[in-house]
């Protein structure tokens, strides 16, 4: 009798432990999905802000038409990629970041623009959105790492393969070509 009760208790403890492990895997997996959608939210926010920025800046920067056009074009390309691969998307968004950076760089030459409150507010919004984009990538990569660790490490790995949990892919920070070794001339 006592033996049976002890056995039963042990089984219950074991089952609870298994359940906890399974739930932790599911939680890690959902976290990855959630983190991924965060990146998308921030990218869309940036797309929404840019037309306002261009509209505000247009009146002041009469000599920088090319810079403005580059921003508009890069935004267009980034928006159009909806079903594309992750790499394609990352490349378009990086190009957009570059054009924005050069826009803010040339804006230094226009003191009147720097005094425009609307412009300053937009600049703050865009800076913050850029930060949020990189933070959401960072968080996405952290949660991917967490999930992959769970999938590959003992004892959760036994479970992961049984229930078909797949490791997720990391979000590369830069476009692949930016990672090639840089040629240095002596």
């Amino acid at each position, binding site marked *: 009798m006592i033996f049976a009760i002890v056995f039963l208790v042990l089984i219950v403890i074991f089952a609870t432990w298994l359940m906890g492990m399974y739930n932790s895997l599911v939680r890690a997996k959902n*976290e990855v999905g959630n983190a991924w959608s965060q990146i998308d939210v921030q990218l869309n926010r940036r797309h929404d802000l840019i037309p306002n920025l261009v509209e505000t800046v247009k009146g002041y920067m009469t000599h920088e038409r090319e810079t403005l056009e580059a921003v508009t074009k890069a935004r267009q390309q980034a928006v159009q990629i909806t079903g594309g691969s992750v790499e394609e998307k990352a490349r378009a968004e990086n190009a957009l970041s570059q054009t924005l950076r050069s826009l803010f760089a040339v804006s230094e030459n226009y003191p009147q623009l720097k005094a425009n409150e609307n412009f300053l507010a937009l600049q703050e919004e865009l800076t913050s959105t850029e930060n949020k984009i990189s*933070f959401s990538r960072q*968080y996405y990569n952290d949660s991917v*790492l967490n999930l992959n660790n769970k999938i590959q*490490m003992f004892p959760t790995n036994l479970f992961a393969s049984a229930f078909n949990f797949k490791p997720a892919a990391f979000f590369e920070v830069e476009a692949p070509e930016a990672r090639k070794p840089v040629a*240095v001339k002596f």
Partner: protein
Amino acid sequence: MLEQIRANRRRALVLVAGMAVLLAAVGYGLAEYAAPGAGAFGVVVALIVWSIQALVSYYSGDSIVLRISDARKIEKKDHPVLFNVVEEMCVASGLSRVPDIYIIDDDALNAFATGRDPQHASVAVTAGLLKELDRDELQGVIGHELGHVNNHDVLYMMMLAVMMGTIILLAGLGRRVLFRTGPGTRTGGRRSRGGGIILIVAILLMIFAPILAQLLYLALSRRREYLSDASSALYTRYPEGLARALEKLGRSTQKLHSATPALAPMYIVNPLKVTATGLSDLTSTHPPLSERIRILRSMGGNTGLAGYDEAFRKVTGRPVGVVAFAAPGRPPSPVPPTEHADRVRQTTDALWALNDYIFIDCPCGTRLKIPPVYAGKKIECPHCSRVHEVH
């Protein structure tokens, strides 16, 4: 982190239970004093008071705390930069709801977080802080506060603050009753015995309030401050920001007017600091600032929780780290290299390339440089243990 969250919940429960015992004792004493034999009734009343108080501190402790500290809620248009920084840190920490944001109109440099869980959290910063800190530093401070929110420190700290407030209030009340009844009891012979009891209770409360405060301060171990520093470094990937902010906070001599002993442990740096900070280190609620700064500074490029742990052990010389149950295997995350370091790296890479070394960029951010003899073999990344084919 789960471990820490559970410990916090347990501590909050112990706190509430301890408060019940204390109040029941006071109720018993008061009732016996008023009418001998009515002790049980007093206990019942005290327990009703206690349950109301516990519920109030759980559900609206945050608004009480915020009101006491003279914090006012702000909208995005009032301070867009602060709002954005909080939002950024939420994204970085994976917090699903942006906390309510409050400003305390005070020149002192300080900040705290409160709320019962991440879904009901608030952060408050002083106006002085907003004026003195740049964006990176503000990010570090907010990261620290959201660290408290994410580790569920806020519930315990809030309950503690409200309970402490109640005890201090009770002590004051006891003193008042004592002084009022003091002269009147001279004539009544029956009252003299009861007067003795309330005297004892009141004196005990008066003695206990400050001692209890001290004990709770210590229980509010400094470890959670270290842990939140570690979280901040993890979220911002830039420990230098928080280090600089702490430096500024430590240098400021402005006193926070709304600070009380009950609220002191919630702040990022002790708002009741005496000028000789070195002396009060042993009993203070916060770890010494200089140590916190040194740990953050010696993290180098390894900004994960493990990196903080290593820096902590190196700086303090203690064998046991502060984030022992941190999420396993968070690897060092690459920091953006400075311009100089970047140039040096490019040059050395060029030299390796001249010697036919093979480069592999691991997704974890490490660049592996492999001697040509390994071509065609497999190699493991020393940081994240991914296996790469060498072509």
